[in-house]
């Protein structure tokens, strides 16, 4: 007959610690709050410039984006927005998965999907911002879609 170890009931669960005693759960908690404060500024600024100012959503097109990213200010703004919001959202979703997915395998699948989608979108989004070409080669009928500072557009 084998014996089974039964843990002492009601013993406090120790915080999960990574190798060198860093409490990742605590830093996640702090990150949600620190990023939240910055995101309020970044998101309301983003929404104001894109949806409220000028003609609002009607003004958004390729030339509009090119105009914004010609200014390093908006490049930095959008990069911060991408990284802070996506990691904040993914970490929040991780909390929710932990709360509701009681099946071990399912939980792993959900969290794996969160990690993969977050990493892929962070890389994609960052590449899009930093390899953006405001004046790409386009066929003659599309020249009018380019921003005016390309010298050929409308």
């Amino acid at each position, binding site marked *: 007959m084998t014996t089974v170890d039964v843990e002492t009931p009601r013993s406090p669960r120790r915080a999960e610690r990574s190798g060198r005693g860093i409490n990742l759960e605590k830093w996640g908690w702090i990150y949600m709050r620190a990023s*939240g*404060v910055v995101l309020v500024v970044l*998101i309301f600024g983003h929404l104001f410039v894109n949806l409220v100012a000028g003609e609002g959503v009607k003004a958004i097109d*390729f030339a509009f984006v090119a105009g914004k990213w010609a200014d390093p200010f908006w490049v930095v703004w959008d990069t911060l927005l991408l990284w802070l919001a996506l990691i904040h959202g993914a970490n*929040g979703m991780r909390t929710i998965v932990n709360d509701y997915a009681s099946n071990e395998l399912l939980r792993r699948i959900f969290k794996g999907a969160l990690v993969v989608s977050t990493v892929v979108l962070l890389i994609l989004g960052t590449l899009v911002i930093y390899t953006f070409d405001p004046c*790409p080669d386009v066929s003659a009928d599309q020249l009018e879609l380019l921003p005016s500072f390309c010298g050929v557009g409308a």
Partner: protein
Amino acid sequence: MSEKSAGTVSAPQPDKKYPLPKLSAPKMPRGTLYRGNTGMWSWVLHRITGVAIFFFLLVHILDTALVRVSPEAYNAVINQYKTPIMGLGELGLVVAIGFHALNGLRIILIDFWSVGPRYHKLMFVVVILLWIVLLVGFTPRHLMHVFGG
């Protein structure tokens, strides 16, 4: 087990000198921020809006990535955001993010401000009021952009 047996200690019986204390069961457990009433409903809304914004963000990064495909592809997709139905969707997004942002600041104040927990209900009222102010400012202007000439 009413019989006393050796080795057990029976609880003291109430009598005139030590009457049973009169207790009325509270309707809600006291001393919790998160069960029932404002604490719980603000949390439910915070969670739902957080999830909604997250899924929008996934889509939004992908549609923005189309600027690297071609101006034509980007404009074709972004023009969908200017239709009446998507215009209402943008309003819903601002409704959701407005609440999540304001209530998020309230959560932060509860956690870090020394008297935050004492004022959590008052702060919830303030959140709702600021939320309404935000939407009263945003809604007409956005609907004008989407539906107006």
